[in-house]
């Protein structure tokens, strides 16, 4: 830990983490400081000027932007709490910000989480001094201009910027965040602020589309409703949405997200369900970024779900499926159990417990046939098996191919949340040589459709559990109350029921811990929202040794 340094804010001493910009220090000290252009994971542009604070320098007090002001020990700062000058300067900036802004919040998808809206409530002037007889200048780019009923030239509205993103040029506040995102993070400059003065407008090269695997991140960084995702257009007002912290299930980096869902309980609130996934900032994992594909994963939560049981493809109740599975396991001579890198550690611990219970009659297999790609250095490792590292820690072997060679030895196959047929149908076809195929799956996927008995389980957004990412960081998935069938169990619940132990959540976690020495000091609480870095195996071994001595 680096030592804190002392700075004076509004006459009070505060100790803050060194090496940051003043704005971060102010946040750390609990002083609300507005920002538009500043973004912790982008370079500093310092152009919006809303974060002004008074700083004492060699030539007396002066207004400085706090986002471009590295903190020094002993520096003396005044904020809106003690300085009329700061309050007025911010009012001024807000007033200017609104000069050419359409303020069409009622039809704006950003309303409710728009920084402009937020700050004109808190930092703006009470009443507008803008004169109605003085026109606005929000003409936008020449290719998209239109003329409104009052004869005023206006910037383009809902411009189709690309396959996923819509642009409203009038709402842009020229903060250049999206430009910086595309340039610095995506590494593919497709957006720029063209022209100058109050004619400035955001644009792609005329006639070209915004197209990048991360382009939806521009809608996150955009502090206003200028860039919005088509998938969320007019879907939901954000204030109806609740947020649950989780991680993405389709990549072993485990980008942190929030699942934004609507419970639908309230009168007049639209239907329930997940409306979007948003990146959740974690400086050590995905920063503030999320791959488009991961972001769109929420759509699978309502598609093609297996909400009951299946026996030879015919629907049955969950209870019936359970009975059938128990019977099949009881009568089988030799069972192949396939653990899953797509499931949580808890799920796999339940599988291991079942394996032990079945004793010699069962054998464990693991691994994945999915191709491992290259990491992009942004928010994906390229390995689609999200919990591969967790499986390794639980000592689950990587031997799926062997299973294919040895199908003749088995008469029963059990898979948990692992769509083997979708991963590699050519290889998986060999598994059809095993007569009894028991499948736990959240979807009516290829594997479920080939099951003799399949049982629906909860999907990743509906369960609580842990996964270990490719950098040995243990992170949590959290459950949102949006399961299509409340009867559905998570995999560990269902599997532990099969083995007759009927764990609760604490027992499942305890079972995981019991198997992995690195988890000795880890608890759900210590993992928290941002995950916890595991100590290496060697370090654990070393400390165990020293304990012995």
């Amino acid at each position: 830990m680096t030592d804190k340094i002392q700075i004076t804010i509004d006459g009070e001493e505060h100790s803050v983490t060194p090496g940051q910009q003043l704005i971060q220090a102010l946040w750390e000290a609990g002083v609300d400081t507005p920002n538009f252009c500043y973004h912790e994971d982008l370079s500093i542009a310092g152009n919006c000027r809303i974060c002004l604070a008074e700083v004492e320098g060699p030539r007396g007090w002066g207004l400085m932007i706090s986002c471009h002001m590295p903190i020094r020990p002993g520096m003396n700062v005044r904020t809106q709490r003690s300085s009329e000058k700061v309050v007025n300067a911010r009012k001024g900036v807000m007033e200017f910000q609104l000069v050419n802004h359409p303020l069409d919040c009622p039809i704006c998808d950003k309303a409710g989480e728009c920084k402009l809206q937020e700050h004109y409530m808190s930092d703006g002037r009470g009443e507008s001094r803008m004169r109605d007889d003085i026109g606005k200048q929000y003409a936008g780019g020449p290719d998209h201009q239109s003329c409104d009923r009052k004869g005023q030239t206006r910037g383009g509205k809902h411009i189709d910027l690309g396959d996923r993103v819509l642009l409203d040029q009038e709402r842009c506040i020229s903060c250049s965040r999206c430009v910086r995102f595309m340039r610095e993070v995506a590494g593919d400059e497709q957006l720029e602020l063209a022209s100058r003065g109050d004619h400035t407008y955001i644009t792609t090269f005329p006639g070209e589309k915004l197209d990048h695997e991360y382009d939806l991140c521009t809608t996150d960084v955009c502090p206003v409703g200028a860039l919005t995702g088509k998938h969320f257009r007019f879907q939901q007002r954000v204030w109806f949405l609740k947020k649950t912290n989780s991680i993405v299930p389709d990549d072993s980096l485990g980008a942190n997200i929030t699942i934004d869902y609507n419970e639908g309980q309230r009168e007049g609130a639209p239907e329930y369900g997940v409306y979007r996934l948003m990146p959740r900032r974690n400086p050590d994992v995905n920063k503030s970024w999320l791959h488009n594909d991961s972001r769109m994963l929420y759509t699978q939560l309502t598609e093609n779900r297996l909400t009951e049981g299946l026996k030879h493809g015919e629907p049955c109740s969950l209870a019936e499926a359970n009975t059938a599975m128990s019977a099949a396991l009881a009568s089988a001579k030799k069972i192949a159990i396939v653990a899953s890198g797509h499931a949580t550690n808890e799920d796999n611990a339940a599988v291991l417990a079942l394996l032990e219970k079945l004793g010699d009659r069962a054998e464990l297999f693991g691994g994945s046939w999915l191709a491992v790609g290259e990491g992009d250095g942004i928010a994906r490792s390229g390995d689609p098996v999200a919990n591969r590292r967790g499986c390794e820690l639980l000592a689950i072997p990587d031997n799926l191919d062997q299973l294919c060679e040895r199908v003749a030895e088995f008469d029963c196959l059990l898979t948990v949340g692992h769509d083997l047929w979708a991963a590699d149908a050519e290889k998986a076809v060999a598994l059809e040589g095993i007569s009894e195929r028991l499948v736990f799956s959240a979807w009516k996927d290829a594997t479920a459709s080939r099951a003799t008995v399949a049982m629906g389980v909860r999907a990743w957004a509906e369960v609580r559990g842990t996964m270990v990412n490719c950098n040995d960081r243990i992170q949590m998935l959290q459950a949102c109350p949006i399961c299509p069938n409340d009867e559905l169990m998570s995999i560990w619940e269902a599997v532990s029921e099969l083995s007759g132990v009927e764990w609760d959540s604490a027992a499942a976690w305890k079972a995981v811990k019991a198997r992995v020495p690195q988890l000795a000091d880890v608890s759900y609480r210590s993992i928290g929202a941002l995950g916890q870095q595991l100590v290496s195996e060697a370090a654990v071994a070393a400390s165990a040794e020293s304990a012995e001595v």
Partner: protein
Amino acid sequence: MSKVGIAEVQPQDLTLEGVAERMSKHQARIDELVRRYPVKRATLLQVLWLIQEEFGWVPRLGIKWAAGIAEVSPVHAFAVTEFYTMYKQVPPARWHIRVCQTVNCLIQGSEALIAHLEEKLGIACGSVTEDNLFALERVECLAACGNGPAVQIDDEFLYGPEELNQHEDGWHTQAADVDRWIERLRAEAAAHPEWETVDQLGGIILDSLGHPGAPKASGSPNQETYAAAPPAINLNAEGANGKITVHALIAPECSKLVFERSDDDLGFSEVGAIDPSTIKGPPGPKTVTFDDRVDIGKTVYYRAIAHSGNRVATPSSSIAITTEARPEADTEYNLKVLSDEKSGKENGGKKEVNADIAQASEKTANKEEGKK
């Protein structure tokens, strides 16, 4: 008065290859531009000028092509084109008349001149005559206020009687002058219907050696040793009662400063050396101070020799100083303090006493300005 319609005026049959082909005749200048800067991006503005020279304006495909040359993204090049006012993004008129309307020219009659021109050409500012010969534009200060209202036709300033073809101080653009120009240009258009192009880079030199390390360049970097090693300068000295302080100014790159003394300004010998890195202060030149003792009443000469790494500068010019006895100060005690300093012993009163001496010596020090 807007840019609406830019998309429509783009030439339909132009392709990126077509642009490249038309631009190939400018290759020599493009090669030269690429040599001039450490990064290709820096050529962007100049390449856009070449596009404008070739096409008379900057079509969007031209922007894209320029982006390729400068190795920037097309949208970067587009934003740059939009930022600057002189790149024409629609096909132009043959001659472009710019009239300054900023404050000095306002006073000197720009509004009247603009009104006159609008009438003469039959168009409003911001538009083009029907015969496509003239475009009329209001612009901001052209840095030719002395002849205001300042007028530019294409790239030429009107700043003197046309016949003289040279700048005349205190000459002011008159409506009649502009009229004559316009008539002459109309006559020229009748005589020569084809447009001439003007070198938009103003005749750049084509065979420079280029920026060292730039693509295609062959220029070699400067040697660190092209200039003489930096000497110590501004030597001066002060002192009394046999104690002397010598000051000198040294360059930031100086790594050692040797002080030498002589009794006769001929045979100098080293009396001390100072490592400037021990002197605190902002970056830049540093003042070095050296303390010495000589017999009271004696004239001595000092000079300083600066070392920068293993380069040794020529000695500074020498200065002469004679210390005088200063009765108010206790010389005995003085000497004792100094000897204590040398032996590194702590002395409680040292600081004060020294300060005292310094103060007093300022009053009585006998400064001599170098030697005659």
